[in-house]
């Protein structure tokens, strides 16, 4: 069935669509700089630094152990994995799960996260809804069912209007998510204006307790190291080397 095309006033484009884009973008940039100002220094303890380096060393032993003699590899493997006093068996780090209530720094971090990200979105969304209300702003290019109407057409009380025609509030939300790539372009990766990333972090934040990981990480490394074998890469290095003449090109320049 042919859809009647609504002709919108071009003033809408000039005075609604573009301003909302600018507002969203500028608010995002301001959020980025505010998050930089409010950033608290992450202090690492000596133990954490030390542990992370030990894990790296063990990983390197697994991956590149084939370049050192067999005896040396076994010596290091024994040091890490020995039943009684191997490093991974012996070291138990004190694990304090950082619950948000008891750990003050986590609490302030969460609050800051909320203030810088969620609050402005709600405020500005509401303001835009209030200012630019009562008219249709734009049309989304795909058909939508009627169930979307109350969500996307806030303030427009027309029963027969297609759900594809949306109000300015929904245009604002569209912008918030759409401008993410613009932020990466202008502010560089890992910027504070990236809302969806923050929301993802908040969802997985509770599961991301680093200290508990240390014991688990040690256990995982122990298992992985138990499984590794030593395949000496230098078994037949002389044969490989002497299979052809040395490439001495360009070694000496003519005086």
């Amino acid at each position, binding site marked *: 069935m042919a859809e009647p095309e609504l002709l919108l006033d071009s003033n809408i484009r000039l005075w609604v669509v573009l301003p909302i884009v600018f507002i969203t973008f500028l608010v995002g940039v301001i959020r980025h700089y505010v998050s930089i100002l409010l950033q608290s220094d992450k202090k*690492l*303890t*000596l133990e954490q*630094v*030390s542990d992370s*380096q*030990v894990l*790296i*060393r063990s990983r*390197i*032993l697994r991956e*590149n*152990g084939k*370049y*050192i*003699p067999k005896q*040396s590899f076994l010596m290091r493997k024994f040091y890490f994995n020995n039943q009684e006093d191997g490093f991974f068996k012996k070291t138990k780090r004190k694990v304090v799960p950082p619950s948000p209530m008891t750990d003050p720094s986590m609490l302030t971090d969460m609050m800051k996260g909320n203030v810088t990200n969620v609050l402005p979105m709600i405020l500005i969304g509401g303001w835009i809804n209030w200012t630019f209300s009562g008219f249709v702003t734009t049309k989304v290019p795909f058909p939508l069912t009627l169930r979307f109407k109350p969500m996307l057409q806030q303030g427009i009380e027309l029963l027969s209007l297609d759900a594809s025609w949306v109000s300015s509030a929904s245009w604002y939300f569209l912008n918030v998510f759409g401008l993410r790539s613009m932020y990466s372009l202008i502010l560089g990766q890992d910027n504070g204006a990236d809302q969806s990333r923050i929301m993802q972090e908040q969802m997985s934040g509770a599961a991301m307790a680093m200290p508990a990981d240390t014991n688990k990480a040690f256990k995982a490394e122990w298992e992985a190291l138990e499984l590794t074998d030593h395949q000496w890469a*230098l078994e037949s*290095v*002389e044969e*490989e*080397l*002497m299979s052809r*003449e*040395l*490439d*001495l090109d360009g*070694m*000496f320049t*003519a*005086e």
Partner: protein
Amino acid sequence: MASVSEMYDVTWEEMRDKLRKWREDNHRNSEQIVDVAEELINEHASKLGDDIWIIYEQVMIAALDCSRDDLAWTCLQELKKQFPGSQRVKRLGGMRLEALEKYEEAGKQYDSILQEDPTNTAARKRKISILKAQGKNTDAIRELNEYLELFVGDQEAWHELSDLYINEHDYGKAAFCLEELMMTNPHNHLYCEQYAEVKYTQGGLENLELSRKYFAQALKLNNRNMRALFGLYMSASHIAASPKVNAAVKKANVKYAAWAANQINRAYQLAGRGTKENKCSVKAVEEMLESMQITMS
């Protein structure tokens, strides 16, 4: 006295870029740095903008190398003014005290940095180098071992420890340190070659075989490593000359030694194309190799 820019006819931008290149490549050409940077700072300080702070740091270390305490002091003052509480600047101050041989005060300076921030590696390493400068090698080795227990990933420290052990003739432990380096940098032919040399110095049939293997590996990684080529020749000949090996091993090693000698000759031929002096050195190498020939008995 002509200024650097007049002598080499370079602009201030080129001087600044040269300094950056030296900084990134970790060149320790301190006298050159002092000449270039002194002029840069005196004449063109305003044009450098924020680059000037890192140049101050670079020049200060170079000035300490050249005993230019006046220059070092000016740089330090400027940096202190700009970055009052900085640990990096404190470390530079400590280095200046070290250069003036005021080791006690330097040690106190580093201790204060460590009190603020126990994870600061630079301060710990400077304390160890104080011990080294005072000639207390055993103490330095002990401190460095403790440092490495905490920071196992510090490659610079492993290399330094291997050098200290070599000085103390403790080749077994030096080999351990070099193994760590070889694991983290498997494609670096220089570590392979140094490891092979340490093993060769340790002596004994097993170590000689290991050293021959690692010389070969170094050559495989870099065909032009002459030192490794000579090392391969020496270790192979040594094994072949040893009375404890069986005939098959001896034969294999004679073959390796012959191949190595061949390559050495080739290299000297390539080098010696043309000039008379080089023809003499080619002859000398041939005679040397002849004299070291092993007889198959």
